[in-house]
């Protein structure tokens, strides 16, 4: 365990931002804190950075407790959503600022800046000011500035959220590449599940100031622990136990024991097989074209369903069809929204 947060609690007035949260990051690991706004993910990142004080709990790196250490003495790197380059400094001065603070000689700073500019593929921009750069360029510089000092931990606070879709995808790839090649333990806060799935070695899914589920992206997607995770990580069809029992009782075989309200069935849209069937129980209500696939909204005995298909134009609205769901594609999750679970 390289970095760990134990039992962190933080309240702002009556609002509990973090409620007894513990997380850990391994050496070289890329961890995403994922959750809706207000779930406490940014507060947790700021506590790790030393920018917000905890009410209780500890932050430690390699066993050394950091709780009383101000941000400037932690030796972390941070990148914010808002770029936050120093507007009065050139690109080179921005990147070199951390080294300057550490008293590095000028020639070494210059060499390091050149190296980082090459690394982020912007070798010609050294003497520009931030206001002369695009958002994507600024964020690359901010990234370079953060890693210039070889930080012990890299903290990314929604670094891609302010960027255009195309730039976002490019930079996402670059962050991934940089992090892998430098091996810096990285914690990124995001509310974008797609981003988290693409980047993370481990996703920590948060809601209402607590960790709901932590694990590899595949785990969270294919085996969500709760209704919240299932809902937040992509699209899912969530169906109550009694409906399943009535309509598709064979899906019950994977269900853990527990009261009806305690677990709910989660079926991903790509895991429902459709067959045209004039006598079938389901009807196509609407079809959305999503480029590489189509999404069908169905009315079925299971209730309204979302299904994704790669098939050619097999269906049109009003068509009747039958559907098949493999039992191992039906995941039972705790219903944490009704309050009966967990």
């Amino acid at each position, binding site marked *: 365990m390289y970095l760990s947060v134990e039992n962190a609690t933080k309240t702002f007035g009556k609002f509990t931002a973090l409620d007894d949260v513990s997380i850990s990051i391994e050496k070289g690991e890329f961890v995403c804190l994922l959750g809706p706004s207000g779930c406490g993910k940014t507060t947790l990142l700021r506590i790790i*950075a*030393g920018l917000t004080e905890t009410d209780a709990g500890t932050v430690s790196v390699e066993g050394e407790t950091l709780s009383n250490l101000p*941000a*400037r*003495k932690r030796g972390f790197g941070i990148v914010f959503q808002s770029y*936050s380059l120093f*507007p009065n400094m050139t690109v080179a001065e921005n990147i070199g600022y951390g080294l300057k603070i550490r008293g590095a000689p000028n020639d070494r700073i210059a060499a390091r800046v050149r190296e980082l500019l090459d690394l982020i593929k912007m070798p010609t921009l050294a003497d520009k*000011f931030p*206001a002369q750069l695009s958002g994507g360029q600024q964020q690359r510089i901010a990234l370079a500035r953060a890693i210039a000092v*070889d930080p012990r931990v890299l903290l990314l606070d929604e670094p891609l959220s302010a960027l255009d879709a195309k730039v976002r995808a490019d930079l996402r790839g670059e962050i991934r590449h940089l992090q892998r090649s430098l091996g810096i333990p990285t914690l990124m806060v995001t509310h974008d599940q797609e981003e988290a799935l693409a980047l993370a070695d481990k996703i920590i899914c948060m809601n209402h100031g607590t960790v709901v589920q932590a694990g590899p992206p595949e785990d969270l997607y294919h085996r969500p622990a709760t209704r919240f995770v299932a809902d937040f990580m992509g699209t899912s069809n969530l169906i109550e136990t009694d409906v399943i029992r009535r309509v598709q009782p064979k899906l019950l075989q994977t269900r853990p024991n527990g009261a009806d309200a305690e677990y709910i069935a989660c079926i991903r849209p790509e895991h429902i097989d459709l067959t045209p069937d004039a006598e079938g129980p389901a009807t196509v209500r609407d079809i959305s074209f999503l480029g590489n696939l189509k999404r069908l909204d169905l009315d079925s005995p299971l209730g309204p369903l979302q299904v994704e298909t790669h098939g050619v134009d097999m269906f049109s609205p009003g068509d009747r069809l039958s559907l098949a769901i493999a039992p191992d594609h039906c995941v039972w999750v705790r219903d944490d929204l009704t309050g009966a679970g967990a």
Partner: protein
Amino acid sequence: MTQATLPRPIPSRGAKSARFDGDKALALICVGVPLLGLVLFFLYPMAIVFLRSITTADGAYGLSNYAEVLGSSGFWRATRHSMVMGGATTLLSVTLGFIIAHGLYRCAFRGKRLIRAVIILPLLAPSLVQALGLIFLLGRNGLVNQIFGIEMEIYGFWGLLIANTLYALPQAVMIIGAALVLLDARTYEAAEVMGASPLLQFRDLTLPAARFGILNAAFVVFIITITDFGNAAVIGGDYSVLATEIYAQVIGQRNFNMGAVVGIMLLLPTVAAYAIERRAMRLQGRQPANAQRFVPSFAPLRDLPMAGLSLLICLAVLSVIAIVFYASFVRLWPYNMSLTLKHYNITLAGGYSSLWVTTWISLAAAAGGTFLVFLLAVGLRRAPAILVQPLQVLAAMPAAVPGMVLGLAYILTFNSTATPLYLLYGTAALIGIVNFYHYHTQAFLTVMTGFRQLPEALEEAASSLGAGLGRVAVNIIAPFVAPMLISVFFFLFMRSMVTLSAVVFLTTPDLSVAAVTIMRLDDAGLTSQAAAFSCAVMAVVVAALFGMKAVLAYLGHRTGSGSVG
């Protein structure tokens, strides 16, 4: 990729050595030094002036001074005059100010740059220049009487009203303009599409949105008027107001305690007006982040009359200043109108020395003052939350105190041998200090505006890179708020150059400042020399103004951003 070969460059880590937190100590200094200044040079003198107002002739505490002042008809006449003058000036100045501001921001015509330039002229000269100009223009020997033979009595209510109106006009225009420029063009487009006529749009959109700006401007103008001394001293004639009443008590009758009482009585309406104004300012909405700036298109029915009115008002402002300039070159006004430079040879004792002294004092007040408000603003970012609010209130308090009252408080405090502060009495340093604290609020609020625009992430990014508060302040904050600091520096400089009310009590035979010299020259009947000296002061101030614009332009150019300003 060679990262791995670089040694770890972080020596400053280590929880054990972090017992003494340099940042906390620095934050304490940042708050403590300006706070000490405010206590020593604002709160303490104000307490003294209050104590003196309740100190009776035999040295005991009591309200007999108040009884005496409140029982005198002179005081009530001055109070009535001050209120009537304040009200009339407010009405006139805000009306004219609204016309100018509306013309500038909601109408389309040429020459707006010129209007902007002319309208700030009264700020660049001591207030009594307005009065001086009016005397040259409308007085018995004035241009109007000479040419048209229309004799009018300019000394008294009407002269003072015009002088005060012109003097307060720049502030009215700026405040109302700031409210008008906030209006979102989209709401007007929506109204237009819904079929609202321009007149309806004005009534239903512009006026309601500008009402707090107008209210705000009204209170500011009222305060400026009732606290101004220069115009009242030069052109007020027999029309005594509270500011001249204080002067009469203190300088005329050497009755400091009675002066203190009148000062407190002047303080009451000022504080009330200031409190309401601050509220009005808070009520004024903020511009939505995505608001579109309104760009008016030419509408002859609206724009031609507005352009005409604006032109007339600007002519009035300009002519009053211009005639001072002209008169300073006239050999013997109004009998020999040939031109000469002889009035620039100041014959009053000291000559131009007070101008240079004032310039140095103003530079020092500007530099020291800018530094102190910057320290305070930095300190407030790190100060405990419960301290921030009271400190902000304290920093914003000096604006509620009329310059006359502050000056009186200073003479009562520093001309007393009771404390070592006596050493400051009669020094240029004390005049610099009074100028700074007189304009502390405006300076502080301007810097705070800059600080509010400073994204917290910048500071946090610097902290995460290892920068302590000192580095953050010098490398990150100061450059970011540099435009504000420069504005504050020149604001303090220019105000210090021209202010009269606060310093009139603090000058001595050996140490005079420019505005006081102008008053003395005028008192001595050397009106043309007073005009010449005024022009010299204005030259320094205008040079400073251009200096400020040049520095700001350079800053904006250097970082290649439009974010400066």
